[in-house]
């Protein structure tokens, strides 16, 4: 893993927002290396900062937010130093493209599908006229849209949700990016369509040699797409590792809690594990382990000192005092053990 080529490197990133005269610390000292050709999934609940985190890669923070410290290195440039739209335009779409959750809001309702894809092709691939048109049609074929010539002349409202999401993906890959960020790409879609879209993104990733980053709260989707998983809680990556490591040998109590509350691991007729309380208020300074107040088995030190990362394997690390050699041995909850020994119930 060490010798893999890093495409994007985030170091000690801090992002803050100013809201009604108060400061919200949304991202707290996050570091992450994104490897070429991998598929990374960032998991977390709403408000954990996962969307904000990837928005910083594209300079898309809301006006009241700023990068307080840290760096984001892409191709030798520190993106946190970018401050003009012009500089950002060399990255957005061209290098890093994004697919958003709701395809209805990310498409222009007044332009035909073809025109919207053409725009990306002309801008980013430098093609014009007949060549651009040809490219547009072949992109539509790539994303699985039949009768591309006819469909290209149609407007977004003439497409179903799943088809619209295919169009959004077509626009994203038409920019020929190196990194594709998918922010909850299938949340608004039906399950059967969801499975098809995930399969499509995976096949495009191979074809265009993309590095993909998925943001999602759905652990089922994560299991499907991820090579590596980063678990975010309260603006921090609390655990990161290979997909199998995070699912089968999770180390952080928050990851345990998240997995235990899955209905697929519950026993019918018995209460499902649920996490008490609410995530910490990031307007206030977080002391110690952010998850400690909701963790029934938190250690004393969890309330005092923020844990560093402990390495579990060369690819797997977690921010929890439980991994300190001096810590008492606490076994993961039963449901988590069940997941690694028996797995979840499938069908048939």
């Amino acid at each position, binding site marked *: 893993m060490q010798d893999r080529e890093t495409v994007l490197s985030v170091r000690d990133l801090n992002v803050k927002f100013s809201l009604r005269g108060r400061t919200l610390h949304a991202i707290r000292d996050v570091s992450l290396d994104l490897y070429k050709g991998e598929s990374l999934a960032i998991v977390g*609940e*709403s408000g954990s900062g996962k969307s904000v985190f990837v928005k910083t890669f594209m300079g898309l923070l809301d006006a009241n937010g700023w990068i307080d410290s840290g760096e984001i290195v892409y191709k030798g440039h520190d993106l946190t130093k970018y401050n003009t739209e012009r500089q950002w335009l060399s990255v957005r779409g061209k290098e890093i493209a994004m697919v958003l959750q709701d395809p209805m809001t990310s498409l222009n309702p007044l332009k035909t599908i073809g025109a919207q894809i053409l725009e990306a092709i002309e801008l980013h691939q430098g093609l014009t006229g007949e060549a651009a048109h040809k490219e547009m049609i072949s992109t539509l074929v790539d994303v699985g849209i039949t009768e591309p010539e006819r469909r290209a002349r149609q407007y977004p409202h003439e497409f179903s*949700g799943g088809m619209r999401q295919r169009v959004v993906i077509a626009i994203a890959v038409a920019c020929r990016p190196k990194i594709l960020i998918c922010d909850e790409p299938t949340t608004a879609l*039906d*399950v*059967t*369509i*969801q*499975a*098809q879209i995930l*399969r499509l993104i995976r096949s495009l990733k191979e074809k265009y040699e993309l590095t993909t980053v998925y943001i999602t*709260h*759905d*652990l*089922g*989707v*994560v*299991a*499907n797409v*991820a090579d590596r998983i980063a678990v975010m809680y309260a603006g921090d990556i609390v655990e990161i590792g290979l*997909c*199998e490591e995070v*699912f089968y040998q999770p180390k952080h109590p928050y990851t345990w*809690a*998240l*997995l235990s*509350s*899955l*209905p*697929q691991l*519950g026993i*019918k*007729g018995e*209460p*499902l*594990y*649920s*996490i008490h309380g*609410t995530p910490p208020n990031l307007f206030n300074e977080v002391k110690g382990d952010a998850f400690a107040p909701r963790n029934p088995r938190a250690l004393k030190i969890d309330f005092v000192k923020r844990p560093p990362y402990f390495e579990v394997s060369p690819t797997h690390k977690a921010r929890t005092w439980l991994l300190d050699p001096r810590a008492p041995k606490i076994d993961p909850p039963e449901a988590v053990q069940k*997941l690694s020994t028996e*797995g*979840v*119930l*499938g*069908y*048939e």
Partner: protein
Amino acid sequence: MSEEREVLLSVRNMDVCFGKKKKLFKAVNNVSFDIYKGETFGLVGESGSGKTTIGRAIIRINPTTSGDVIFKGKKINGKISKELDRQVTREIQMIFQDPMASLNERAKVDYIVSEGLFSGERIPEAERKAKVAKALAEVGLLPEFASRFPHEFSGGQRQRIGVARALIMQPDFIIADEPISALDVSIRAQVLNLLSVLQKERGLTYLFISHDLSVMRFICDRIAVIHKGVLVELAETEKLFAHPLHPYTRALLSAIPLPDPAREKNKVLEVYDPTQHDYSVDKPQWVEIEPGHMVWGNEAELKKYREIVSK
């Protein structure tokens, strides 16, 4: 076992249509099912399948075009007496998907929770207050929350307010339309646990409408699958997962994302192709293929299903 159980709600050959004449759209087509007292009955389908419309037709928000809805032995669809209408309003309650949108943001929790009480006979103010406090306590909220507004609560708490609003009417039957879809994973568990505790304590019956089969498997006793307004299969939960017969059910089950990489990465996706059914001559029917297991199909398909079942 299903023969002796008491039927609380029975839907018979129900059609719900929208629009008129040329633009007529049949959202629900000839749907029949029974819900037994005390069970959790799941209705699963994709967006636009008509699952919500069925719920709304039962609670009389959408009028039925034909067929019967029978609740506790009385027909409750179409024209009914004022008295019966009042009884239905009280005894059937609904919980909605988005707790942000379904609570009046201008009203205090006190009013939101007790609004239903104003529809019947007047009750003394002190009694109303006591009822609000009791309903809030039952869903795990503090009595002082009554004087707050919905925006002061988290998603999970808001959904509890929605549940309290239904409970205060002391219903027998609750229609929960995607009650946890808008919630985060950890909060889902809280709401699911709450619903199951309330069911045990009060003997409630639920109609649970959702698109999420993994949640339904956990809480439903029986599940009906709906596709484009037609029920295609109905069975006890584990039977449905173990022996799905209709190709649409199979496709839906195969598509559920499993939070288990070893399984998820090797799963085989089945795609449903509606053109595989040839219903031009041999018309499909809603048939009980084995006790408690209903399926929609024509003679040729049913023959095939019977062979599968007998194995």
